């Protein structure tokens, strides 16, 4: 039977018996981490659901002040980054070092584009006094409903902010992956970090897949 006498390598750390066991454990570990993230974001989605069902009209009006075309374009940017990410994983599976680096760099660039667009959108909100706080004011709703409108924007900033934070962390992960890929750490036998990094990136993309319609597309037909 295998014991602890084997030399520890990246692909086979001393607590594991085989590289396959380590890969399976790492992948399962990332999936379990992702379900904690589902419950974490889920709490915010739950708050959103409660308040949208309580104040459907105000939420629709507030939502319509977001630029749906920018939001949709940004969604496309993130989907592109998911494509480049999975191609990076595929390149790793095939042991193509240069392709791994290229695709992860592309993923990173697209991620920065997304964050840049978000920064632009937030700045727009700041200009329009739609940031919750003392100077919040949404012209399109009556004075008595300002609190409800502020709730929408609180959720908007909280959820997109949390999402952006996860993108920044994802960017950090990409940086590390690029560095290690350039050092030749990954090959067809061992590419687990690229794999689980990809899982994380796709998950953040899935969060946005839900954020976009829930925040930007509330009863758009009303405003047109």
């Amino acid at each position: 039977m295998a014991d602890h006498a084997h030399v520890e390598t990246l692909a086979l750390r001393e607590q594991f018996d085989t590289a396959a066991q380590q890969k399976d454990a790492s992948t399962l570990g990332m999936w379990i981490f992702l379900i904690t993230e589902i419950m974490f974001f889920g709490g915010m989605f739950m708050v959103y659901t409660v308040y949208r069902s309580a104040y459907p009209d105000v939420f629709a009006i507030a939502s319509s002040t977001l630029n749906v075309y920018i939001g949709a374009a940004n969604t496309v940017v993130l989907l592109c980054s998911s494509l480049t990410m999975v191609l990076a994983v595929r390149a790793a599976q095939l042991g193509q070092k240069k392709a791994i680096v290229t695709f992860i760099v592309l993923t990173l660039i697209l991620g920065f584009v997304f964050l840049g667009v978000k920064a632009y959108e937030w700045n727009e909100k700041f200009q329009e006094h739609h940031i919750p706080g003392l100077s919040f004011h949404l012209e399109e709703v009556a004075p008595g409903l300002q609190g409800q409108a502020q709730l929408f924007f609180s959720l908007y900033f909280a959820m997109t902010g949390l999402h952006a934070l996860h993108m920044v962390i994802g960017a950090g992960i990409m940086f590390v992956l690029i560095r290690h890929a350039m050092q030749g750490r990954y090959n067809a036998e061992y590419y687990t970090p690229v794999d689980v990094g990809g899982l994380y990136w796709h998950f953040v993309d899935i969060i946005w897949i839900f954020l976009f319609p829930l925040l930007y597309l509330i009863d758009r037909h009303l405003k047109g």
Partner: protein
Amino acid sequence: MTGHHHIDSVKTYVFVFLALIFATVATTAVAFVDLGRFSVVVALAIAVCKMLLVALFFMHVRHSTALTKLVLIGALLWLAILILVTLSDFASRGWIGTLGR
């Protein structure tokens, strides 16, 4: 036991990607159509389809072990419990009056 040694083709990934773009365009366009209360249902349905595409193909759940699939289903179930059960409180306020009165 390992899950996958299946390497998908670039073509597969590009097709999935195009489907995702199409779904994004669709959900944006449909938002401008008056579907009443079904707007949110359609939007969520499209979002769920996009999620499934990303999960099954980009995250390789298609080729994953049964355990991975169970983990994912479990998480979604727990999210459903959180949202639906909490909502049931807010939705049912006033259904039954104050006890004893």
